[in-house]
């Protein structure tokens, strides 16, 4: 009798948990053949709530950024007078992650049971994220976009990326060029992606950089589906096509 009671109790609890979990995922979202949420499609770049126009690159809100670690690596990169160091984008250097992800352009995701491929119209960023919960590759050279690996937590895709080189965190440099906001080579990012509704993704981004900050910090963004952008697809982006900043000096005459 006690065994039957225990079984029924467990069954009730399991059903309750399942219903609760299911209730958190909106109905009608696309799913792959193995039942996972399918993020394939065109999207606009992640935006923070409260912006009126949403026409510009998204930057991190100061209120979410953790305090700087005393004696740690500088959050704001001091200028040296060397153009390639001070203004690397004048030399068509990459934006890196997460800065590129937050740039004001289209994104297109491709998903199968093995990988999620994120492409971004800005600089044609491409991230290939394995979804089988594997560990990070070893012995890699630090890079601008790092080494991402993904796993599922229910209907939430969790992507951890490590292996970065020290580079700019976001595009705040273009708000104030005295504040080139940086991350160190110790940064790990954690993205949590899930459907808010059938046309909107919740994109939670955690910055865990023990060399720069006293602790990890996170900001929530919204990614809206833009299926209508399928008609034109991506615009090409080749920075050197008409770069007017050769050698780090920018001008209409390109000198």
């Amino acid at each position, binding site marked *: 009798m006690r065994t039957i009671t225990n079984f029924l109790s467990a069954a009730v609890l399991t059903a309750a948990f399942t219903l609760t979990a299911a209730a958190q995922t909106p109905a009608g979202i696309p799913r792959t053949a193995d039942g996972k949420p399918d993020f394939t499609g065109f999207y606009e770049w992640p935006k923070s709530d409260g912006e009126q126009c949403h026409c510009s690159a998204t930057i991190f*809100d100061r209120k979410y950024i953790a305090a700087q670690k005393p004696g740690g690596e500088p959050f704001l990169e001091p200028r040296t007078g060397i153009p390639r160091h001070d203004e690397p984008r004048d030399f068509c250097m990459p934006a890196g992650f997460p800065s590129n992800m937050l740039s004001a352009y289209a994104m297109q995701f491709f998903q199968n049971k093995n990988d999620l491929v994120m492409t971004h119209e800005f600089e044609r960023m491409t991230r290939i994220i394995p979804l089988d919960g594997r560990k990070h590759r070893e012995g890699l050279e630090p890079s601008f976009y790092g080494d991402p690996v993904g796993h599922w937590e229910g209907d939430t895709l969790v992507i951890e990326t490590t292996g970065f080189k020290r580079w700019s965190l976001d595009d705040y440099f273009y708000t104030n060029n005295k504040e080139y906001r940086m991350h160190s080579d110790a940064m790990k990012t954690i993205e949590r992606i899930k459907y808010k509704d059938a046309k909107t993704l919740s994109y939670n981004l955690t910055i865990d950089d023990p060399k720069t900050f006293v602790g990890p910090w996170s900001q929530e963004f919204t990614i809206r589906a833009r299926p209508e952008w399928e008609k034109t697809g991506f*615009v090409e982006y080749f920075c050197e096509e*008409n770069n007017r900043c050769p050698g780090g000096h920018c001008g209409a005459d390109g000198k």
Partner: protein
Amino acid sequence: MKKLLALPLLIAGLGTAVQAHHSFSAEFDSTKPIKVTGTVTKVEWQNPHIWYYVDVKGEDGTVTNWAFSGGAPGQLMRRGVQRNSIQPGMVVTVEGFLAKDAPHNANGSKVTFPDGRAVFTAGNDEGDKKKE
């Protein structure tokens, strides 16, 4: 009649950032807004920034060719500004901020057409209030 207008514009939050390949604050002077009207002579709809050129006739009849830089084509397309939005021969009024080291070079922001329509060509839309 084409006029050269240089009105002191007070636009809150304007020009704090340019999604550009160079720093707005390093290349353009946010204290020097400009507003000119003239005829488009050339459009370069290319990465990393579009450039468009406008012949502006001064009050003395002298024509000066102004050069304006804007955001990238993909970025502009995502907010509804297309390749054919600005064409040679069009009469436009351009608002923006002067380049620091060139007298007739500016960051082109708002472009207004004779019928009152306007497009925003800067990397950062002047209406965007950035949360920092």
